[in-house]
């Protein structure tokens, strides 16, 4: 095909948002290369794997079917996609940068002596692929020298699916050769860690605290602000990793997704895994001593300063305004 293969993560219930975004990225790439887009995903023929496309549909879609793929395993997916890619010979294979893709695409790319360009945020002419370095403090522009498929994964939220939906495409069924002995891992059923006692998802105001707080002993500073604002307390991952706040207060890709009217980020740098959890907030305030911290990229209001001075002052000002 020598085109662009856009990959759908296995789901039984139609196209995911991640797929629509990956498809949108594929279209940007198609714009620069003039190549045609096809889609691929694992799913049985009765599932509506490629139910609806936002924007123009791909030229064709490949449903990868095999009983040994009913549960995700890296070994199974590597074998299946390796065979499909050898058959189709796309110039580009584009994936969502999901936990699943992180788990198997680097291994898949290695089979082709390629290296995945992971977590891409923009595609420019060339084509050139932009991704973040240093947790968002810098960007890097990558190129693929050609020869063999170029593997790319797309950051969640980076490309916007646009256009009318409803287009359909022809679905081709592909059955890879997989032997049960080739699958070495035995995955169990997904489960949630603990009973959720706080529902950050419906909170109207949230104060999020990050590693800038330095020590658990300093947490009263954010607790005071939260109670003055009538806000829930939330945290970035390192705060919960350290056991300073319970995991159910963690916001981000591996924690909760929130959409308050007001989110105050205190001492949080703004790594993408945190940002995906707060991007539905109506108003974001950032307090950070580093003026170049990526959190200011998404904040409506910012105070570049030491949170040990700013938080008490802010708590006092909020109380005064009541």
């Amino acid at each position, binding site marked *: 095909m020598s085109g662009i293969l856009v990959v759908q993560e296995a789901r039984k219930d139609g196209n995911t948002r991640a797929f629509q975004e990956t498809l949108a990225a594929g279209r940007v790439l198609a714009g620069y290369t003039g190549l045609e887009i096809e889609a691929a995903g694992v799913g049985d023929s009765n599932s509506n794997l490629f139910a609806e496309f936002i924007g123009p549909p791909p030229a064709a879609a490949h449903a990868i079917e095999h009983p040994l793929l009913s549960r995700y395993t*890296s070994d199974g997916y590597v074998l299946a996609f390796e065979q499909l890619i050898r058959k189709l010979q796309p110039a580009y294979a584009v994936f969502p940068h999901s936990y699943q893709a*992180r*788990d*198997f695409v*680097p*291994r898949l*790319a*290695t089979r082709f*002596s*390629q*290296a*995945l360009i*992971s*977590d891409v945020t923009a595609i420019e002419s060339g084509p050139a692929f932009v991704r*973040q*370095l*240093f*947790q*968002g*403090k*810098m*960007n*890097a*522009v*990558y190129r*693929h*020298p050609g020869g*063999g498929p170029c593997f790319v994964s797309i950051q969640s939220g980076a490309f916007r699916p646009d256009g009318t939906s409803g287009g359909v495409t022809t679905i081709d069924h592909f059955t890879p050769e997989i032997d049960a002995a080739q699958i*070495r*891992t*035995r*995955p*169990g059923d997904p*489960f*949630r860690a603990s009973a959720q006692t706080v529902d950050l998802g419906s909170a109207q105001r949230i104060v999020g605290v990050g590693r800038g707080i330095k020590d658990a002993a300093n947490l009263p500073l954010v607790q005071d602000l939260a109670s003055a604002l009538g806000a829930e307390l939330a945290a970035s*991952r390192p705060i*919960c*990793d350290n056991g300073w706040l319970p*995991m159910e207060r*963690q916001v981000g890709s*591996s*924690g*909760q*997704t929130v959409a308050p009217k*007001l989110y105050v980020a205190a001492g949080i740098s703004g790594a993408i895994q945190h940002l995906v959890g707060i991007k539905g907030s*109506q*108003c974001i*305030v950032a307090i950070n001593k580093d003026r170049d911290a990526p959190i*200011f*990229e998404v904040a*409506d*209001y*910012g*105070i*570049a300063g030491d949170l040990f001075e700013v938080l008490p*002052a*802010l708590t006092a*000002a*909020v109380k005064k*305004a009541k």
Partner: protein
Amino acid sequence: MTDMKIIVAIKQVPERDAPLRIDSAAQWIGESGLRYAMNEPDAYALEEALRLKESAGTEGEVVAVSAGPERVGTTLREALAKGADRAIHIVCGDLASRDALAVARLLAAAIQPENPSLVLTGLQSEDLGQGQTGVILAELLGLPHASLIVQAEMTATGLKVKRELEEGWFQFIELPAPAVLTIQSGGNKLRYATLMGIKRAKTKPVRTLAAADLGLASAPAVILDQVTLPQKQKSTQMLSGSAEEAAAALVEKLKFEAKVL
């Protein structure tokens, strides 16, 4: 059971709060004057390795491996001070210009002859953040892998690991050993090096290997062309003045402009 040998691949990265600037060729950051530390997810991988060895109770070994220039030696000493038994330093001055596959090839060449029972890495580095080294390493070593692991335990048949999924979900995975695991932060509390540990580390063996001796460099699969500063997407209103002035101005804005108070 034979003695357990766990290899931990560790990267040295700029300290989190280090001020970064782009180098003159705009292909990496300026390294002079920078301070370095152990990549945090790798510190969790080391912690998991030390715990697995301790809980096995048999004679075992934890070996720290790192590729990089001479300064990487301090991070390897830190791993030894925390309890690793020995270290392998792959001396390589041009790590930043090698792609993930090339770096994993170096590591694989150093690890293969060790015949490990288990290989651990952090799930990603804090500098490049590609999140691939461990998974590629598994493919190059011909071993099964599991990624984003927060807990691991040896069983009669191999390993049982707890894998983090998105949005607060988890799953258990069983896999045979030897295997490669990439470790996510938070599964354990990190230990500090004790004074005794630091003293002992000085006498523990560190073997150096030259990158050039670990196989021929191959053509790059991808090329880091340019490092740039992110473009601001959003116009953030920055509130200045003293802490009190900024706080008062912010409350005004939140009340009357954003109307969220």
